[in-house]
């Protein structure tokens, strides 16, 4: 037994040393202008891109009126310029495939404001199904501080996230390894393409990951407790009967999260947590409002944003909740 323990310890120690050496070397040797780690280590993401630009734009931003949280649906679907035209100060914190776990960590660290903004959480069903590794590894490479990066590893332990974190420590993060051409400002990216021809039908049934609904629940509870209004939005997708079924089963799971607020006293009556399901909104045209089967194009975004702003206003969802539970209608006052 003693021999087994000694061998195991030695094996572990040498393996750790080798791991660190290889990680360091791969992050410092470049081939064709790219650090070798990016080619050799699966799932590792480059530094730069939309995430890096968004963080450098928004980390020091203070007291917006609206904060948008979510995946690429968020950063491609909510244009701060349109909100600005409507005299609303909005920032877009969406990142690629951002799941609710990441949203929770980032919101607590970066997007909590004294102004008690309205939080729009874009809920895209697919993100609740994925394993979330793309989101985690991209953020681990690009988030400005080590703490939230490490939280992404520990909250959802996965060797891939761990490798991404180690690579973050080893590589030079001041170098931006790729850029996005369609970045506009305040986290938003625009797309002017138009969906042409047929798009693939949705053939999967919705099988969500329990943990992401849990973290959505935690995120909403956190924002509620801070006194903000939370609006969940499921943004328009091309009209499709299969997608309708898919979306319906997602809604069933989401309803379980929303039901918590009824039972815990955060009732819908006070309208602090509202869900707008616009996924199959008939006003959006498959031919001209989408850039691809999953995202709105700039024309679609404008249509969607004006519609959403109108709805937020008409339902009095802009501005912080006052002590007695009523709303100060910031935008309407203007």
């Amino acid at each position, binding site marked *: 037994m003693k*021999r087994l323990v000694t061998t195991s310890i030695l*094996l572990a120690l*040498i393996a750790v040393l080798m*791991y660190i050496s*290889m990680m360091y070397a791969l992050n410092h040797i470049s081939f064709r202008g790219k650090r070798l780690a990016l080619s050799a280590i*699966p799932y590792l993401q480059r530094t730069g891109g939309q995430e890096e630009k968004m963080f450098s734009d928004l980390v020091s931003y203070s007291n917006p009126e609206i904060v948008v949280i979510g995946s690429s649906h968020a950063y491609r679907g909510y244009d701060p310029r349109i909100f600005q035209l409507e005299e609303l100060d909005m920032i877009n914190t969406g990142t690629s495939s951002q799941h609710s776990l990441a949203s929770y960590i980032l919101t607590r660290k970066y997007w909590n404001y004294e102004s008690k903004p309205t939080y729009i959480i874009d809920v895209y069903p697919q993100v609740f199904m994925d394993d979330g590794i793309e989101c985690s590894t991209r953020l681990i490479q690009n988030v400005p501080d080590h703490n939230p990066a490490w939280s992404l590893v520990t909250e959802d*332990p996965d060797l891939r996230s761990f490798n991404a974190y180690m690579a973050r420590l080893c590589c030079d993060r001041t170098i931006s390894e790729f850029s996005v051409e369609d970045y506009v400002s305040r986290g938003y990216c625009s797309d002017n393409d138009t969906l042409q021809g047929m798009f693939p039908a949705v053939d999967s049934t919705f099988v969500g990951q329990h943990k992401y609904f849990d973290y959505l629940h935690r995120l909403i509870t956190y924002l509620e407790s801070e006194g903000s209004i939370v609006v969940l939005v499921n943004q328009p997708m091309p009209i499709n009967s299969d997608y309708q079924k898919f979306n319906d089963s997602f809604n069933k799971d989401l309803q379980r999260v929303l039901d918590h607020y009824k039972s815990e006293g955060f009732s819908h009556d006070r309208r602090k947590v509202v869900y707008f399901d616009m996924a199959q909104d008939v006003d959006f045209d498959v031919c001209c409002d989408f850039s691809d089967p999953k995202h709105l194009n700039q024309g679609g975004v404008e249509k969607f944003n004006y519609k959403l702003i109108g709805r937020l206003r008409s339902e009095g969802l802009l501005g912080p909740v006052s002590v007695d539970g009523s709303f100060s209608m910031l935008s309407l006052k203007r």
Partner: protein
Amino acid sequence: MLFNSVEFLIFFPVVLVLFYLIPHRFRWVLLLVSSYYFYMGWNPAYASLLFLTTTVDFFVANRMEAFAEKKQRRPWLLLSIFFNLGLLMYFKYYNFFVDNINGLSGSEMRYMEFLLPVGISFYTFQEMGYVIDVYRGEIRAERHWGKFAVFVAYFPQLVAGPIERAKNLMHQLKSKVVFSYHNFSLGGQHIIWGLFKKVVIADNLAVIVDSVYSDSANFSWLWLLLATYLFAIQIYCDFSGYSDIAIGAARMMGVELMVNFRTPYFSKSIREFWSRWHISLSTWFRDYLYIPLGGNRLTQTRTTINLMLVFVISGFWHGAAWTFIIWGALHAIYLLAELVISKFSWWKNYMKTRKGITHWLGIFLVFHLVLLGWIFFRSDSVSQAWQVLQDICSMKTYEGTLPIELRRVGDTGIWIKVLFALALMLIDPLMNKIVRGEYHRLNYPVKLTLYSFLIAAIVLFGFWGDVAFIYFQF
């Protein structure tokens, strides 16, 4: 529960510690409970199927033993075979038959919507082997249901083999095992090497192979050829990796499972290939089907029929699709051709060579014959396989853009994966000797460094995620 999952990383050490802590007489309970828990990780409902087949075969074997004459035992044997094959037919092949009947007759028979019970082909074959052995009087029927159930459900080899024989496994499961450093060391080496082959080689290659084969019409002949070569390495590393982990896990609990692979791509004939690839299945077919059919002891025609039958069934065992049947038939044709040429003296001389250009040319040729079979094995349909073959032979060019999965990997990434795969094939024969303890030239520090490197590489380069073993679908 997958071997390459965090759950197994917790499950196995817990079982291992409990195994050595509890008294020998209760170990079968631990192994039974842990094996069923392991199996229920996929679909709890299918554990009832495992329980049912175990109980039926336990009962049948004990009934058979009550009779001295084979003639009297035969009805029970047939009952067991019909029952096991019936289940296999229903769960694995029902939709295949419906598909073909609908296609031929234009009828609209309904498909069954259920998931294939993981490992059903493996454990039904293991049980049938046991029942046949009892029928032949080669072993005694097990009187203890629980211990028999452990033999059937033994978690290291339950879902993808090796398909064990009762003669080898049953007595080991009953033997009193004491802690041994030697067993732990060999077991650990097998597990590390198996995991390396699976997550570092097979799963990384799968990205390229799957991208190409999922849209094979939009790739040039070079990509198709590369993907086929890589698939040959992927399936070997995936399956032999699983077998190594199974052998290692069992070894740590004092059980020696049979060797399932012996560097098959270094074979000089197809016959030799089948004595080195998935050995537990090929010997199963040899002992329980080929030899009872008469083997090669009868006329030339009967030998031909027997070989054809065994390999077509073997192909069908792998999957309910015509691609697998053709793959099996192709290997039967190779073997028949070999039977013809094996009568020539040059063939005998060729088989004796151990080095030189003839030796390596033979290995090269056999590998490419096997590769041809892999095209059918990997393709989703016969028409796809045919198209891939035509595109490779006609050197089809294609100028379109690569799919997103391959663009993400990038040129350098693809080359790194290819180099890893080639390096693996070169060191595989030596590594097999090392993990089996048959190579004694490495001293302790070198071995320690070697396995530390493998562990670091597993963590660093492993394609972690929910990637199942290819043979789970069979």
